[in-house]
């Protein structure tokens, strides 16, 4: 175990030449985001708090989200579904140090989470012959070796995160069945049943589901407050108007609470939320809709929408000082919900889906 870890970290550390590197040593990236480059290649970028690109690491295909390892400047970037690669990146050197490949019969969904001590990585996966969601368990210290597999508690698991200060995982089971032999075609819309599943050590502790009338509201992404409140964002697969695109839940509560918004405002989001994030105040939540070209901010205590901002092809969102940072597929960075609000170009990057906030050394 120790040998493996030492080998993984590399000779520099083993020789004791420098102290164990931390996130602060990497020119302090505050965020990670996948991007497409003008020449058609894909990359994972480290982004500073000033919304400047600090480093760029090539990916073998289109990326989706990433997970930052607590305790060490290391991240894993995941392929967009139904991709099968994940790349471990040393954010200190800006190099890829390992590649994970989904096992035979599985593909990644694009998200993953580390255990509190950073020793285990959990990935959302599709057991596509069975049509069941799985959580892949990887031994980080051994060099990202696949060691176990758990049920995700549903179909189509997408986002996965950990409740702060615990090893309780929360999985957004989107409910949508797909099979790689038919690409991204949705196979079970009429019967889909999304849920939020709380999992520790391979055991599903609780499943929180939506009312039956909302079974076509795919729970896809989550943001978790420092106090463990789960905000979950949805993508509506029904024909008629959607009644909510954001909800909150707390482990142990019997059912989720749906956030209110005028029908008009929901329609403007085109039934679709791409990313979700809490503000540093742990109260406001922002959701992005590239299809609606909108970022909407909710007050989760009051339980309703408070503001809307037009951002064309809005994609990733994460907390930033006083509010939120937002990326767009048209290559811009935005600050929203804080004073002053701003917009700046990022040049040649076409930002994909998510902006992952790195919480240094947090457990």
């Amino acid at each position, binding site marked *: 175990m120790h040998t493996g870890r030492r080998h993984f970290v590399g000779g520099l550390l083993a020789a004791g030449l420098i102290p164990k590197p931390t996130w602060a040593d990497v020119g302090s990236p505050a965020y990670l985001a996948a991007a*497409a480059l003008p020449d058609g290649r894909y990359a994972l970028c480290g982004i500073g708090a000033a919304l400047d690109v600090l480093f760029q690491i090539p990916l073998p295909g289109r990326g*989706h989200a990433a997970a930052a390892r607590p305790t060490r400047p290391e991240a894993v970037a995941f392929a*967009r*579904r139904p991709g099968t690669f994940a790349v471990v990146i040393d954010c200190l050197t800006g190099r890829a140090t390992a590649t994970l490949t989904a096992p035979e019969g599985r593909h990644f969904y*694009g998200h993953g989470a580390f255990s509190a001590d950073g020793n285990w990585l959990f990935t959302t996966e599709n057991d*596509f*012959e069975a*049509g069941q969601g799985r959580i892949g368990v990887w031994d980080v210290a051994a060099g990202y070796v696949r060691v176990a597999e758990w049920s995700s508690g549903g179909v189509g698991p997408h986002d996965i995160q950990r409740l702060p200060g615990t090893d309780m995982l929360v999985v957004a089971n989107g409910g949508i069945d797909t*099979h790689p*032999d*038919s*690409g991204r*075609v949705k*196979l079970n*819309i*009429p*019967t889909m049943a999304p849920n939020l599943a709380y999992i520790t050590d391979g055991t599903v502790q609780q499943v929180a589901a939506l009312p039956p009338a909302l079974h076509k509201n795919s729970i*896809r992404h989550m943001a978790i407050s420092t106090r463990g409140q789960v905000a979950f964002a949805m993508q509506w697969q*029904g*024909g*008629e108007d959607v009644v909510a695109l954001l909800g909150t839940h707390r482990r142990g509560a019997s059912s989720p609470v749906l956030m209110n918004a005028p029908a*008009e405002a929901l*329609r*403007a989001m085109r039934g*679709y939320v*791409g990313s979700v994030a809490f503000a540093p105040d742990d109260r406001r939540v922002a959701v992005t809709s*590239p*299809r609606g*070209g909108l970022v909407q901010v909710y007050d989760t205590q009051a339980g309703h929408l408070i503001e809307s901002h037009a951002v*064309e*092809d*809005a*994609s990733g969102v994460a907390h930033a000082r006083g509010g939120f940072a937002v990326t*767009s*597929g*048209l*290559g811009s960075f935005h600050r929203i919900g804080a004073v002053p609000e701003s917009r700046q170009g990022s040049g040649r990057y*076409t*930002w*994909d*889906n998510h902006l992952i906030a790195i919480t240094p050394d947090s457990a």
Partner: protein
Amino acid sequence: MIRILAALTILTLPTALAAQDDAAMVEDVVNSHILPRFEMLAERSDHLADIAQETCEATAPPLRTAYGEAFDAWVAASHLRFGPTEQDDRAFALAFWPDSRGATPKRLAELIADQDPIANIAEEYADVSIAARGFYALEFLLYDPAISTMGDATYRCQLVRTATQDIAATTAAISRDWHEDYAARMLNPAPDGTYRSENEVLRELFKSLTTGLEFTADTRLSRPMGSFDRPRPTRAEAWRSGRSARHVELSLDALNDLAIRMAGEGTDLASEFNTAFAYSQTRLARLDDPTFSGVSAAQGRLRIEVIEQGVQAIRTLARDELGPRLGVAAGFNSMDGD
């Protein structure tokens, strides 16, 4: 400065004209592309249900002909997946495919083995597993050697009649909703409407074109190819009835019609589309492999791959040329999120 102002004037003038053009284009697409397709689908499905009342024998030529004609009409409309087709899962009830885990034959075999009385009444049949409904289920009942001969012939006959009535009811509902409601919604975008602006209508139509092309390339053509080492000819669409290549042909014809209307007849872009579609269409016509069984041999596989690449080229043309022209050339998250 003067030069900048002049440039701005030039830029804004065509925009005003474009708004009128856009409205006219949408009207043309709705009235001449969308409505006739759903009318045709409803008519032919109604005819199919009538024929099935007369003759329910799986091999009866009139039944198979009526089935083929109604299925043709569905494929020609299958890219129009929004509004009335998505209400109550109607599109899925007509077309449960791809069926990666074989749910359709499984459910049908269960119904036949149990002689489930739900097959006696069309209205109730809408409550069976969606995998046992629609054109792809009917294909098993008419063409699959096992399902079409399984169990009690009288029960199977009833199943064919009920399934066709169910198809007729679903397609009638889609056509009715388009005529009585949804066409007006598309033609009259309003701040409190389904579409808040002309741009949102254009986006919906553009998405139909691009996702239709994607489905034909990735699912109708690529899926049976599998990998080079493991071709999957039995994953071809509707191969039991020998309709795989025909579906590609029908969908390309329909998408070509839509692309030309959106590009504007007689424009350079329209002729570029015609050329791009013709590339795949002519190669498909020469293929002479109705079920894509040729994917199992290197030569046949290559020929199908060339057709598929041709369809991908049409997608690129739509994305790079038509999208920007319509003002719907947003980044890749809005057209292709996750």
